[in-house]
């Protein structure tokens, strides 16, 4: 599981690839929190996520609430079928702000 982050303007884009499970989700959690501390706006690119479990979802939720408490934005982009299914099972698909592509996500912030 790999995490790559980049900056586009003042937006932090963090791309997660591979499988997020109990063994890898702690890294995701830490990376997300770091991003939130470092930027007002975070977009999470999930296009390369092949698998995500409840611990991965929990990391997303925690980051989302953290950002919210700071008045920052935290959105998801490129959520493929697999991660979307998991979010739907958890009924979180209506809670997160989800965009089709990273560009759309960034544009929405403006």
């Amino acid at each position, binding site marked *: 599981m790999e995490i790559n982050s980049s900056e586009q303007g003042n937006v932090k884009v963090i791309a997660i690839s591979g*499988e997020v*499970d*109990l*063994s890898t989700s702690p890294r995701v959690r830490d990376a997300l929190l770091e991003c939130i501390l470092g930027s007002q706006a975070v977009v999470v690119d999930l296009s390369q996520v092949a*698998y995500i*479990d*409840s*611990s991965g*979802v*929990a*990391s997303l*939720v*925690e980051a989302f*609430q953290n950002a919210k408490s700071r008045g920052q934005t935290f959105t998801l982009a490129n959520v493929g079928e*697999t991660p979307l*299914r*998991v979010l739907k*099972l*958890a*009924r*979180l698909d209506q*809670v997160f702000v989800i965009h089709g592509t990273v560009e759309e996500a960034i544009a929405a912030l403006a």
Partner: protein
Amino acid sequence: MSEQLDLLAQMGRDFAASQDIEATMARALSRIATLVGAEGGALFLLDNAAENLVCHASHGPVDILGLSVGADQGIVGRSVAGNVSEMVRDVSLDQSFQNSLDQQSGFTTKSILCAPMVVRGAAQEEERIGAIELVNKADAQGLFADDDLKFLEVLAASAALAIHNARMSRQLAEKEVMRRELERAAEIQRGLLPPPGDANFPVSGVNRPARVVSGDFFDHFTLFDGRIAFTLADVSGKGMNAALLMAKSASLFRCLGKEDLRPGRLLQRINAEVCETSMRGMFVTMVAGVYDPVTGRVVMANAGHEPPLLHKEDGTFEALEAGSPPVGIPIELTGGGPVPEDVLYLDGGSLYIFTDGVTEGYIADKQELGVDGLQTMIVEGLKAGLNGTDRIDRVAECLTKSDEPLRDDITILVIDDGANAKARCGQKQARTEEEQQTDQPLIGSLCKLSLPARPQSLILVRRAVEASAHLSGFSKEQTQDIVLAVDEACQNVVRHAYVGDLDGDMVVEVQRENGDYRILIRDFAPPVDESNIKPRDLNDVRPGGLGVHFIREVMDAMDYLPPPDGQGNLLRLKKSIPHNAVK
């Protein structure tokens, strides 16, 4: 004279009441020596091999307790061998006198009396018990007279009888103890057999030992999915030896069978165990199998046992020959591989497994029942409307009632598919060739993984579950859902089962049985409290607690089952395979 009669009476009572024959003999000897008026004396008993006379009581200045002489040596030997009393009035005149003892002890023997102790049995046979020897009359001269000898003879005869009776009653007591122990062993053995089920239970057995304890056994137990595992075995030999090996094999069947019930491999494992701790030269012929009441399907393996009989619904019989040598033959000779399995569908018929004590048992006039006779009795039983249990009980009754005692233990097991077949409404499903083969991945256990219960193991579980779900016919989406559910269930084990440093294992097994796909997750940690497992309220958007919710959403059922051996936890997840996808 009255003193003497008193002594006789007292001696008799003493021996009868005493637990300690040795002490009683010592007392008796002292009294006898005193009454006859001898300085010293000894009471000799013939040992078990009748080779030596051993001194069991000694009286007087020289203690020769424990001294052993050859059964035909010396005056005492002569007396016992010839059953005559001996008197050497004056030893200085007798050749056979051994004065070696005098040289050692410093005592001077002058005069000897010796009377044999012999009892006569009911058929006038003599039993030589020993002899009483007295030395040195306790008067000025120290020499005995004829009267003294006669007196000693009478006393010795009484002592003989008293000792004999005491021995008899001790032997009886010992036999009684042994008999009770044997009965206790038989009781325990009966307890190892499964209790009789209700009248409609399709599997039942009967066992009649030839002696008190049995070398045959049968067993059956029901798996959580309703299939019934069964076994019947015959240990070589009879009596205690056979019974002990029987107990060992029976335990192995239950214990190993609950882990892995493929009969061919089960017998292979039992064989390995028995050979490893081999009871020399003993072996077990054994049949083991599984019956599925839902389909009437039986998978069975036979190690060297009398061919079981399949009685088909159309009335014909078929014998199913053994595929391998018996259990317990050294592996160097047999190769030690799995026993070949047979797959058969009972289709409303019955399967009979029995030991050769049945077919070689006598019915009347030293006639053996034989396979034909057994078949006849089965057909008669069916005609009379008897159920499986009653049919085999009837056969056992017939063999035990005959005039002859049982030649060998009788054990019969029956699997009666009649009732279940009716419940299937007589529908014979078209069985694919694949279903009729054994060890196919389509039915039964697809895989069983044992892994350390830590996060890094989860990806291995996911891969295996993904592959097996796909193999079982689930769609891509369904497969992904199942993978998620199983991952979450395993996470519970990883996170909560082994608290702290405890490094434990979990075992994940994927099973496919007809239309069901099942995953079993086993851990060996302290039992989970089911009431603590609750899905999270999803309206509360908080991290954590999602796992159980995912499982319940995806799977048809999630249950905690009683774990084998009561250790740890066993979680079962179940999902039906969609019909059009059943491969």
